[in-house]
C-alpha cells in the first residue's frame, strides 16, 4: 500500500468515523426529550497498524456502533424501589379513604360513621337519662333514636368499607390486562434483541424493554434475571415466571369467595402478589388485609353491643309489664347470629318504645334498675375484653398508626426513588466526570444528613428528657 494512499485512507476512515459518531450524538440530541431514551456513546475501534518502510504506523479508528449508557444494576434497584413506592402509595390512598370514614365531620348536620364514638356514648347516656323517669315516653323514644343512630352509623361504615373493597377489587382486575400487555411486549423485545444484537447493547430496543420493565414494576413486584444473548427472564417476587426470553405467561383472574383471585398457569398467586409490591400489591393488601381488619373490628363492636344490650333488655320488664322470652324476646337491636357480618347488618328491630325494659324482672313499670344496668354496660368489657368506647378508640388509633406508618414508608421510598433517578440520569446522560460528581454528591449528602440526624437526635432526646423532668417537678 502506497504511503499517500494509506494516509488518505486513514484520513477518510477518521472522517467516516467522526461522521458516524456525529450521527450518534445527533440522535442523542434528537431524543433528548424522549421518555426512557438512554444516551448512546459511539464505540471506537483502533484499526490494525500499517507498516511504512518497516515502521508501524497507526491506521486510525473506525466507529463500530453505539452503546447506551445504561446500567442494569442501577435500573433494577430503581425498579425495585419504584415497586415498593407504588405499593405503599396505592395502599396509602386506600388507608386514607378508610381513615376519612372514621373522622368526625364537624361541618355535617347528619350523623356519619365518623361519629360512632359519640354515638356509643349517646346511646348509653340515653339509658342514664331514662333512669330518671322510666315511664317517660320522650325519653324512651330518645333511647330508640340513639340506638338507631348508632346502628345506622356502624352499618353505614361497614357498607362503605365493603364498597371500597369492591372498588379495589375492580381496580386490581384492571391491572391484569396492563401486566399481560407489558409481559407480552417484553417477550417480543427479548426475541428482537436476541436476534439482532446478541453480543452488544441493542440501543433503542433495550430502552423500550427497560421502559416496559419500569412500567411493569410499578404495577406488580418483579425480579429480573439476565439470560444469554442479552435475553431477560422476569418473575414475580416470589419466583413465578412471567417472561422467559421470548415467551410470556399470562395472568388470569377468577372469582373465589366473592373476590377476584389471580392465577398464573392454574396456580392461585394472589397472596404472593399482595406481598410482592407494585400498585397491585398495594391494592390487594388494602383489599385483603386492611379492609377485612377494619370490618372485623366493626363486627366485634356491633356484635358485642347488640348481644349484650339485647340480653340485658330481655332480662328486664317493659312498660307493659312483659318480660322477654325465647319465643318473644325483647330485643332492641337485630340479634346477630355470628360475629361476621354483624356490623353491616346492625339495625334497630324494636319499634315500640314501651318494650324497653327499664324495670328489673318482676318489678313494676316505675322501676329503673334494668335501665341502670343497661347504662352500666358502657363501663363493662363487653367487646373483646374492652369497654365499647375503649374498643372503638383503640380501633381508630390503630388505624391512624397504620396510616402514619405507611405514610412514613411511602415518603422514604419516594425519596429513595428520587435519589436513584438523579443517579440514573447522571449515569446515562452525562460524561464520566459528571457521573463521578453525582456519586460524590450522594456520598456528601449522606454524610451531611447523618450529621444532621445525629444532632437532631441529641437535641430531641435531651428536650424530651428535660420536658419530662419539668412535668415531674
Amino acid at each position, binding site marked *: 500500500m502506497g504511503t499517500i494512499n494509506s494516509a488518505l485512507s486513514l484520513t477518510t476512515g477518521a472522517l467516516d468515523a467522526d461522521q458516524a459518531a456525529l450521527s450518534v450524538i445527533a440522535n442523542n440530541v434528537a431524543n433528548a426529550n424522549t421518555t426512557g431514551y438512554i444516551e448512546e456513546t459511539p464505540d471506537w475501534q483502533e484499526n490494525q497498524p500499517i507498516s511504512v518502510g518497516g515502521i508501524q504506523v497507526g491506521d486510525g479508528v473506525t466507529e463500530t456502533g453505539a452503546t447506551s449508557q445504561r446500567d442494569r444494576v442501577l435500573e433494577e434497584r430503581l425498579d425495585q424501589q419504584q415497586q415498593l413506592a407504588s405499593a405503599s402509595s396505592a395502599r396509602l390512598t386506600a388507608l386514607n379513604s378508610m381513615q376519612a370514614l372514621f373522622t368526625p365531620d364537624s361541618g355535617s348536620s347528619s350523623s356519619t360513621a365518623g361519629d360512632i364514638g359519640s354515638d356509643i356514648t349517646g346511646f348509653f347516656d340515653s339509658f342514664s337519662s331514662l333512669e330518671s323517669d322510666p315511664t317517660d315516653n320522650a325519653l324512651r323514644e330518645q333511647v330508640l333514636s340513639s340506638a338507631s343512630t348508632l346502628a345506622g352509623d356502624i352499618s353505614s361504615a361497614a357498607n362503605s368499607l365493603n364498597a371500597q373493597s369492591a372498588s379495589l377489587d375492580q381496580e386490581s382486575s384492571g391491572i391484569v390486562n396492563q401486566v399481560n400487555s407489558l409481559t407480552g411486549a417484553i417477550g417480543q423485545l427479548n426475541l428482537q434483541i436476541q436476534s439482532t444484537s446478541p453480543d452488544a447493547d441493542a440501543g433503542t430496543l433495550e430502552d423500550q424493554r427497560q421502559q416496559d420493565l419500569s412500567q411493569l414494576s410499578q404495577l406488580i413486584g418483579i425480579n429480573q434475571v439476565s439470560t444469554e444473548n442479552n435475553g431477560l427472564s422476569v418473575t414475580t417476587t416470589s419466583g413465578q415466571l412471567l417472561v422467559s426470553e421470548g415467551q410470556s405467561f399470562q395472568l388470569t383472574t377468577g372469582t373465589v369467595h366473592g373476590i377476584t383471585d389471580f392465577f398464573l398457569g392454574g396456580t392461585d398467586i394472589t397472596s404472593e402478589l399482595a406481598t410482592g409490591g407494585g400498585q397491585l400489591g398495594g391494592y390487594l393488601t388494602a383489599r385483603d388485609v386492611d379492609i377485612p381488619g377494619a370490618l372485623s373490628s366493626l363486627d366485634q363492636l356491633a356484635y358485642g353491643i347488640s348481644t349484650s344490650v339485647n340480653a340485658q333488655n330481655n332480662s328486664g320488664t317493659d312498660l307493659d309489664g312483659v318480660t322477654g322470652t325465647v319465643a318473644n324476646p325483647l330485643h332492641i337491636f337485630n340479634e346477630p347470629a355470628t360475629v361476621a357480618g354483624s356490623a353491616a347488618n346492625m339495625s334497630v328491630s324494636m319499634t315500640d318504645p314501651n318494650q324497653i325494659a327499664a324495670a328489673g324482672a318482676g318489678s313494676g313499670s316505675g322501676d329503673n334498675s334494668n335501665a341502670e344496668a343497661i347504662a352500666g354496660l358502657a363501663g363493662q368489657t363487653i367487646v373483646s375484653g374492652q369497654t365499647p368506647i375503649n374498643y372503638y378508640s383503640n380501633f381508630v388509633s390503630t388505624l391512624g398508626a397504620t396510616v402514619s406508618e405507611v405514610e*412514613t414508608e411511602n415518603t422514604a421510598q419516594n*425519596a429513595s426513588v428520587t435519589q436513584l433517578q*438523579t443517579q440514573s440520569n447522571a449515569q446515562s446522560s452525562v460524561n464520566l466526570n459528571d457521573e463521578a460528581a453525582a456519586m460524590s454528591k450522594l456520598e456528601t449528602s449522606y454524610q451531611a444528613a447523618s450529621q*444532621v440526624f445525629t444532632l437532631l437526635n441529641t*437535641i430531641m432526646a435531651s*428536650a424530651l428528657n428535660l420536658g419530662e423532668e*419539668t412535668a415531674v417537678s
Partner: protein
Amino acid sequence: MHPAKPELKELVVEASRALARLDATQLEELAFSCQALTRTRNPEDPDERTHMARQARDAVADMAVFARVLEATRANLNVMNRLRELRAVQLEYTERQARAGGGAEGGHGDH
C-alpha cells in the same frame, strides 16, 4: 418568646426533603442550624425546656421519616459503591485485555 428560631419539626422536614434531592449544601446549612440550636439553648430556663419538649414531641413522626430516608440513602449508596467496584473491575479487565492485544485471542483458544 422564640421568634427567630425555626421549629424543630421544620428542620426535620427540610432535612428529609434536602436528602431526597441530594442537596448537600442545604444539609450542611441545616447541620449549622442544629449546632447553633444546641449552643443557644438554655436548659436552665423552665420555659425553654417546656417549649423544646413540645417541639420535640411535634417532630417525632417527621424524625421517623427522616430516619427511613437516611436508611434508604445508605442502601442506595451501598448499591452505587458496589456498582463502582464492578465497573472498576470491568475497566481493569478491559484494559488488561487491550494490553494483551491479539495474543490474548490465541491464549483463549478452544482449550
